């Protein structure tokens, strides 16, 4: 059983956070020339599309958004039954010489980001790879750190952060849940 412990972000919080992340991305990269976003399925894609929209409002230009499915690169394929089916990866730009920003909803162990980097490298040799994340909940198992963080949410081992986005879940919110025995 899971119990909801707290609502951490609502729709407005998420919108403001994405706007700030968009500004940070544009600022750090001095514009969006040679810049591409790559959302990690499933919710990372929605975050990436929202970031692209926010960036367009700032810069007045479109930034390409790719979709990365990392199922085939996971390191736990051998030991776990994996949930969603494998889906198509679609990167509409050639990552060679691009700065590619990987986008995901939650950063936790770092294993998904590791798999995403491996997947991306099979498409080319990006000049630089950065990581943008909506929520960082800690408990890293690999030496990975996000370049752009929406919100840090320290959690205990029994707590879990759930990001819900309208594109998939009919509501925009981030909640903290605890799993009971």
């Amino acid at each position, binding site marked *: 059983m899971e119990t909801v412990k707290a609502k951490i972000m609502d729709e407005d919080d998420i919108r403001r956070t994405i706007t700030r992340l968009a500004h940070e991305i544009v600022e750090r990269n001095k514009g969006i020339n040679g810049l591409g976003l790559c959302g990690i399925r499933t919710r990372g894609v929605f975050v990436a599309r929202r970031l692209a929209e926010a960036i367009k409002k700032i810069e007045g230009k479109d930034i390409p958004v790719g979709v990365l499915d990392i199922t085939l690169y996971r390191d736990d394929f*051998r030991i776990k039954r994996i949930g969603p089916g494998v889906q198509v*990866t679609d990167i509409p730009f050639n990552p060679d010489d691009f700065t590619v920003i990987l986008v995901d909803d939650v950063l936790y162990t770092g294993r998904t980001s590791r798999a995403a980097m491996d997947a991306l490298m099979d498409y080319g040799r990006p000049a630089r790879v950065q990581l943008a994340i909506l929520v960082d909940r800690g408990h890293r198992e690999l030496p990975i750190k996000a370049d752009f963080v929406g919100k840090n949410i320290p959690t205990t081992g029994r707590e879990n952060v759930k990001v819900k986005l309208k594109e998939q879940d009919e509501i925009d919110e981030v909640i903290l849940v605890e799993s009971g025995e």
Partner: protein
Amino acid sequence: MALHSKHLLGLENVPKVDIQSILDAAVSFKEILERPIPKVPTLRHVTVVNLFFENSTRTRISFELAEKRLSADVVNFSASSSSVSKGETLIDTVRNLEAMKIDLVVMRHPMPGAPQLLAKHCSSKVINAGDGSHEHPTQALLDMMTIRETFGNFEDLRITIVGDISHSRVALSNIHGLQTMGAKVAVCGPPTLIPRALEKLGVKIYYDVDEAIANSDVLNVLRIQKERQEDGLFPSIREYHTLYGITRERMKNASRELVILHPGPINRGVELDGEVADGPQSVILQQVTNGVAVRMAILFLLSRGEGGRDELGS
């Protein structure tokens, strides 16, 4: 999303949801074949033995490529150069291979039911790559993937298999798989090469190829084996071609949407004219590409970890 069965022995009794899973996954795997580095690390932990007791070029290479694109370790075995020629039984052969720690066996065998026997007596996962005149499920699945790419779905699609139906494992697997998916399957050929019992499976039978062409959305043209003529099942290759060969002339009566499939190897000028095989309605080479993708999907789905949690760790 794992399949309901540990093995893929045939398409008879494979549920619709499993066929759907395989065809859906194959679309994603086809994309991998187009990448600059057409290889993923997914099956690094899996060792596959390709056990071929019968000659094969396309199917064996297609399986081997599928396995290598998924980073599996691959061992190839052909009966002519093995202990089978020293009298070892099939089960002993595979048990010995298993003692060397393998996970999956892809087998082609001239005896119908050989993969079922193996699945019963060995602990590896088994994929049937053709057993006698029984089933050839991966061929049927790649045919289905190709048909779906053209038409989008199978509901009420009219698919006619033309040729030697009696001796064809491709025909039987296609009939089972396509009927499960809701297609209307028919067969066409000389009466000596069509088992009557097919009517009981709800398969329509045409003895007139022009009638079949006029009433089909897809023709799956099978190879005519010359040995069958020696068995007296039809008088001559020439007569077969005249009565059942798919020629440009005959195609004039077909609808423009009619699609031509052939599992290969083609006898040009016998069951299929070169002009039709190379023409705009032929999807034969697309079938070959799809074969690798479909086999990757099957290897992937059969190798999924069992048990454990469903959640993705971020």
